């Protein structure tokens, strides 16, 4: 989301408050449809359509990128220097004009825009953004800017879903969720990896797992991948070479890769979060030239011998995996790709960071593997394995999506034997990146744009308060429901203290009674009756368990002055009690911590 958007925001959408599709009363027979098409079911069906439309849009986006590449850079694998210099420069000029004057919301990668739609704009993303993203990203990637098609695809999917949701006047809750559903579809189609797309959207955009969201996201992702494969085939992005881990001791080599990848992630993230505000802070007229200058510099890198850094670079990742380059050259390529991506992204050229991240990861991975093999020849040397794990490492370290990073490698490689090295390397990279660069890149970018979007990473690590953190030790007097009121009064008299007395029912259940009530019952001549008979009309009170979130206690403590906290294995065993005062005190202390 650009800073412009961050300040003003899109116009407030008109959203139906409580109906799925502006439901009006109709004949009785229509209630059959209404029953069948409850809004949640309808939303699931709608997710399939979102997937189909997103898939179709992503297919067209891929066509557009390829056509741009062929017409700008030529159809051969080796391009002329003139084209290498002119194509990204001229495209940069056109992109700048389009972004400044026609599609101001098309800047950036698209992930934060989708998050903003979810958390700020009730799922609203203008359709114009999708058109702008489509055109400008296709021009940028096709002309050789070092950016990828995945994040724009994610945003295009989210835009289409949002537009559809608005047309159908979905409820506010569903409107909020519809952008991530479209995002998952777009990303899945762009990446040809539905599981990774679903995980990424859950991990990075939505941040929570619920059956309703998961169902919709999975349906849209799968249907978009089916559409994409219908038109573009089912081949994965890379040809995966045989992946092997011969000896457990080789895990040390992958740990080293994790460390190097973690450091590279920090450098990359630091570069982007430093260079981007610098570029944005320059005089406004320079905004017209920044993408062109970035394009020119990338063209120079290409002319000087590294045309591999241009565009998304999937074919070169494939070649790296198959030992096509020396490890020294791959290390240079990784560094140059970082520079090229910094230039492209910081200049405000629309495009994604997924593909460059994977490129840098693959090159660093294979280079580290090659260097380790040169130093320790007894290590098995499989560039494909190191490149694949390198991709996951950068994904975990730079994009800070640890779970997605693991599953992405598994999904792309189709080989589960690689899981241990992936986890080892990714853990190292993630921990190093988290330590040296506390703010994740997407959070840093959104804060630069003046948006305070929830940080999924912080949410994941946030500690929550539980009932056991606020509860008090059990009351000394516990009355049994079968006791007579006289006996109860005698017991209560022996232990003066709390005004509220807990009554335990058999075989389970709890109730409460104040000393005052007990006294008045006895004075009313009911001393020989049991507590059970007296409390029959008053009903039982709910119980809590120590491990439950403290929020849960809030539901009860205002209605019942004392709520029992009981053992899960024995509901008659009192572990503590909790009052409204205890809950509020604990929250106050927690805020202070």
């Amino acid at each position, binding site marked *: 989301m650009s800073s412009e958007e961050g300040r003003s925001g899109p116009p407030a959408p008109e959203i139906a408050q409580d109906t799925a599709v502006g439901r009006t009363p*109709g004949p009785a027979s*229509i209630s059959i449809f209404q029953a069948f098409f409850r809004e949640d079911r309808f939303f699931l069906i709608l997710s399939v359509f979102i997937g*189909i439309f997103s898939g*179709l849009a992503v297919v067209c986006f891929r066509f557009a990128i390829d056509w741009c590449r062929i017409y700008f850079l030529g*159809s051969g694998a080796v391009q002329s220097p003139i084209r290498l210099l002119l194509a990204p420069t001229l495209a940069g000029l056109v992109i700048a004009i389009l972004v400044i004057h026609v599609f101001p919301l098309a800047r950036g990668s698209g992930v934060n825009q989708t998050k903003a739609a979810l958390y700020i704009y009730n799922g609203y993303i203008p359709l114009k953004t999708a058109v702008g993203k489509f055109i400008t990203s296709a021009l940028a990637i096709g002309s050789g800017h070092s950016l990828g098609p995945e994040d724009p695809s994610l945003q295009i999917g989210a835009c289409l879903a949002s537009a559809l949701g608005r047309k159908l006047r979905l409820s506010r809750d569903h409107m909020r969720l519809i952008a991530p559903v479209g995002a998952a579809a777009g990303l899945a189609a762009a990446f040809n990896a539905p599981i990774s797309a679903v995980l990424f959207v859950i991990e990075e955009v939505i941040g929570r797992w619920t059956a309703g969201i998961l169902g919709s996201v999975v349906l849209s992702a799968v249907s978009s991948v089916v559409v994409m494969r219908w*038109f573009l085939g089912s081949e994965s992005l890379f040809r995966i070479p045989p992946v092997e881990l011969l000896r457990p001791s080789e895990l040390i080599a992958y740990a080293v890769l994790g460390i190097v990848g973690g450091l590279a992630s920090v450098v990359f993230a630091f570069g982007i979060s430093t260079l981007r505000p610098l570029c944005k802070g320059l005089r406004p007229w320079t905004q017209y030239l920044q993408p062109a200058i970035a394009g020119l510099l990338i063209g120079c890198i290409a002319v000087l011998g590294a045309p591999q850094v241009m565009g998304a670079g999937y074919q070169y990742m494939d070649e790296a*995996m*198959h030992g096509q380059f020396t490890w020294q050259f791959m290390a240079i390529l990784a560094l140059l790709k970082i520079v090229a991506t910094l230039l492209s992204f910081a200049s405000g050229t629309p495009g994604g960071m997924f593909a460059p991240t994977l490129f840098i990861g693959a090159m660093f991975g294979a280079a580290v593997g090659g260097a380790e093999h040169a130093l320790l020849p007894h290590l098995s040397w499989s560039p494909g394995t190191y490149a694949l794990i390198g991709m996951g490492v950068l994904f975990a370290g730079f994009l800070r999506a640890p779970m997605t990073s693991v599953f992405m490698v598994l999904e792309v490689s189709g080989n589960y034997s690689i899981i241990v090295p992936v986890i080892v390397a990714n853990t190292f990279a993630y921990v190093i990146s988290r330590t040296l660069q506390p703010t994740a890149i997407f959070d840093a970018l959104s804060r630069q744009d003046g948006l305070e979007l929830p940080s999924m990473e912080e949410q994941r690590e946030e500690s929550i308060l539980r009932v056991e953190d606020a509860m008090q030790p059990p009351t000394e007097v516990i009355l049994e429901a079968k006791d007579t009121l006289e006996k109860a009064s005698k017991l209560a008299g022996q232990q003066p203290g709390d005004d509220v007395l807990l009554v335990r029912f058999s075989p389970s259940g709890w109730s409460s009674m104040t000393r005052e009530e007990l006294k008045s019952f006895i004075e009313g001549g009911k001393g020989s009756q049991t507590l059970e008979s007296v409390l029959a009309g008053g009903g039982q009170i709910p119980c809590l368990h120590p491990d439950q979130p403290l929020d849960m206690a809030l539901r009860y403590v205002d209605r019942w002055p004392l709520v029992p906290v009981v053992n899960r294995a024995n509901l008659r065993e009192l572990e503590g009690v909790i009052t409204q005062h205890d809950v509020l005190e604990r929250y106050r202390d927690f805020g202070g911590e």
Partner: protein
Amino acid sequence: MANGPKRLDLSPYLAREPVILAVLTGLAIASFLAVTGLSRLYHAQQESLAERWSARGAGDLNAHRFQVAITEFRTALLYDRDNSAYQLSLAQALMGLNQTDEAQAYLVNLWARQPENGVVNLELARIAAQKNQTVRALRFYHNAIYAIWPGNQEADRRKTRLELVNYLLQINARTQAESELIALETDIGEDPTQQTRLGGLFLRVQDYNRALTAFRTALKLDRTDAQASAGAGVAAFEMGQYAAAQRYLHQAVAASPGDTASAALLQTTESVLQMDPFRPQISDTERNRIAISAFNTAVDRLTACTALAASGAPSSAKPNVAASTTGARSLMQQWQKLKSQMTERGLRQNPDLLNTAMNLSFQIERQTASACGPGSPADKALLLIANLHEEN
């Protein structure tokens, strides 16, 4: 108003989900058709670019300009990445530059899609053979033999089996190679060149009988085939059929005077025939003369070998010589005993003497051959005669 015709009110239905779904379905179909149109344009362009680059690649591959061919096939694959033919050509170009790992990656992907493709299996077999992965190589060679080939399947399968036989010979798996050759025997028809080649391979696996049959078949089809004559000569020689060997080798040397190997073998064959006292259709006088000559040749060899042991034999031979010194002495004593009887007259008087003398001569030749290595052509001939008669 109340009495007017009642109009059907569809508005409650039109606002509902089924209609929306129908509209969405219609929209999806329309979009699908539109994208299909675009997709056709896109794929047509990609296909044409792919064909153009692959044609260039094929030209360069044929001209053994592997590096350029690799770039061109890679470009072709940019536009048609699933095309097996391009992938195969790229793999072949990569193999041309000895980039076997990458070639293998392409081929393995291809194999996963087309496990029945003969070319892919053969290339994978070659890579495995190059990497000394014998089991894998054999598996892919066998796959290739029974796989589907474009064009002339029989000829390709035969060529593959021949390649497999060569590989088996290379790794000294003679028995397996022989089995493959026997299977191949039935596939080769009336083609003299192929028969000659088959005979040569049978010679290499030391199946002389089948080798001779193959060479004879080749010669039936082309009498002037010097290679077949030479091969038949060798096969006959190895089987001890010296007369036949002499005939074939004569033909070979006559057809190809530069064939020194055949000439040398012919000489040995003729020596065997001349020095064999047991051969039929010779007079007793001649037989006795040959036996006396062989007897003397043997003692010359024994003397030379003993002298070699006493003086300065090559260090590698010395242990053998030393070990056989005692045996040599005993043989010499036996020879001395017979020497006086080994005359024309002695042999005429004692017909058993010929056998005794020849047995001693054979024994001497064998022992000296193991102790001192190969001797003169005459000694070699005597050894061959010994083997021949021992077998009989």
